[in-house]
């Protein structure tokens, strides 16, 4: 499928991932199919436990599917020693995703260990400049940077390999609204300039609308709704998606809120 459609950078076909916890089988992801076109962003939305994080691990090759397949640039993502991963991750907690004892340029250039030191430093300097971190910060350690600056560093590290796919796992949920706006704008500018595809995991629908070309809603590991972002935000078709959209803060006052569980159609426990 993807071999004949090179514009589709990420292709998931009936992707399934189960875990065995004691005697229980946890169906983290069940029969999930989607495609991400080159240079576009797919926002993955869902509550805790919906399978969002499992999906990020499968796209980046940190785990393998139980059945079905995932292809990045036409091949299954596999982590190989000495080679950067085909899809790079930007984590939720910027402070927790960089080594606190390592200089910034060394953390950024870590995926380039096949290059010599001078080339690694030059590559780190160029990409850090692009995300707004000046040369004077190359040799500082993470403790000297703010949350927003650290998230810029994390984005630089994801982009330094010139990867065609970036997976962002709630990249702005730990940031203030003002810094969040800077990071979301930066991601869009970089995407237009460098042309990478992005899988953007979030539970904030307002953030998803700002960045997404496509939206996929997950619930209990299954796809509830998948479609173009403008159509989704104009009127989702699935009742669960509608409930999620209604639950986004700022849409209406609390006085008018029913219980979310009632609206999404949960049976009483």
């Amino acid at each position: 499928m993807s071999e004949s459609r090179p514009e589709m950078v990420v292709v998931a076909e009936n992707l399934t991932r189960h875990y065995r916890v004691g005697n229980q089988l946890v169906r983290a992801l069940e029969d999930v199919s989607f495609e991400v076109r080159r240079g576009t962003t797919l926002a993955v939305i869902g509550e805790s436990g919906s399978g969002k994080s499992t999906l990020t691990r499968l796209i980046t090759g940190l785990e393998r599917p139980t059945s079905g397949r995932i292809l990045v640039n036409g091949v299954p993502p596999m982590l190989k020693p000495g080679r950067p991963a085909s899809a790079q991750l930007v984590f939720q907690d910027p402070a927790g995703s960089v080594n606190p004892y390592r200089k910034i340029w060394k953390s950024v250039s870590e995926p380039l260990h096949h290059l010599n030191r001078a080339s690694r430093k030059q590559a780190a300097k160029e990409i850090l400049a692009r995300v707004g971190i000046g040369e004077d910060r190359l040799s500082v350690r993470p403790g000297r940077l703010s949350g927003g600056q650290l998230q810029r560093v994390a984005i630089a590290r994801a982009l330094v390999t010139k990867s065609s796919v970036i997976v962002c796992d709630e990249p702005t949920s730990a940031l203030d609204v003002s810094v969040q706006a800077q990071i979301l704008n930066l991601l869009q500018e970089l995407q237009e300039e460098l042309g990478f595809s992005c899988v953007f995991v979030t539970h904030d629908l307002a953030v998803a609308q700002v960045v997404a070309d496509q939206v996929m809603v997950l619930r209990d590991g299954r796809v509830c709704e998948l479609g173009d972002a403008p159509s989704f935000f104009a009127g989702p078709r699935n009742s669960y998606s509608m409930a999620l959209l209604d639950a986004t803060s700022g849409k209406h006052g609390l006085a008018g809120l029913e219980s979310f569980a009632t609206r999404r159609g949960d049976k009483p426990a």
Partner: protein
Amino acid sequence: MSRGLKVSDLTIRRKGRSGEAAIGPLSFQAEGGTAVGIVGESGSGKTMSLRAIMGLLPPGFVMGGDVQLADDAQPLSGDEALRAELGRRFGVILQDPFSAFDPLKSVGSQIAEGVVRRGILPRGKALERAGTLLAQMGFPYVEGTLGLFRHQLSGGMAQRIAIAMAVMPNPTVLLADEPTSALDASLRIEVLELLRNYIQTNAAVLVMVSHDLGLIADFCEQLIVMYGGQVVERGPARMLLGNPQHPYTQALVGCAPHIGTEGRRRLLSIQGSAASPFDHSVGCRFAPRCPLALDLCRSVEPELAEVDHVSVACHVVQMRTEALEPHV
């Protein structure tokens, strides 16, 4: 008012430093059954202000001003008096619900522990009340939930149990630091409904720190906007967010993404970095980032003044208002 909270001229300064306070002055008054929201960027002083009200400032900082409960004739004087109210008339809800739990103790014994230790309730009564609260928090199997441990809880369960723990002594004031930022949109609503229900049923006051403007607009009656340690705007939440006056509040509202008719887009952003309350020079602290800043803003610190039903600390807004007022 029967129950309520009054904070007057709350300031925070480094020990041994005289002159202008790094954070504050912060003043507000809230009646029972209402909520006050404090918003601002990281480092704006909102969490420090909340910690000062709890009497839990870090070593090296001193608090000035008064915190008074409506039931009392006198304000609570000093850190120790404030700390003595924690777990009695002050309930605290933290951003990370898991940090509120001891991993080696069951949920039941932790919920009961505070009131038992303070001699508010005997253990049997405390466990009974814990069960009642958990049922109110939407847990169908109370007995089973009381026996759970931290690692067996989801984020939503942990935050609901943390709220149960905070309201065990039936506090007059709930102090919440980003109580829903770690939760999904759906759980956020459930948690806010629980908080709203508690403060209305018990005529309690909720003081909530958040950077989610939508949440504050939905939930709080009063809003305080802080920047660089100072209150820059204060007033009724919906009125203030519907028509923000201060350039910083306007910028914050502009930055916040909201579901709208536009699709993929760039957001407004505030250039530069947030000012620290602890390395302030002169003038308005927002002036270096403010598109409207005048020479006056860089040399004289603005004070809060009434503009259009809200209080705003901005020379430009105050001058504009004065110019529009009819001359007698």
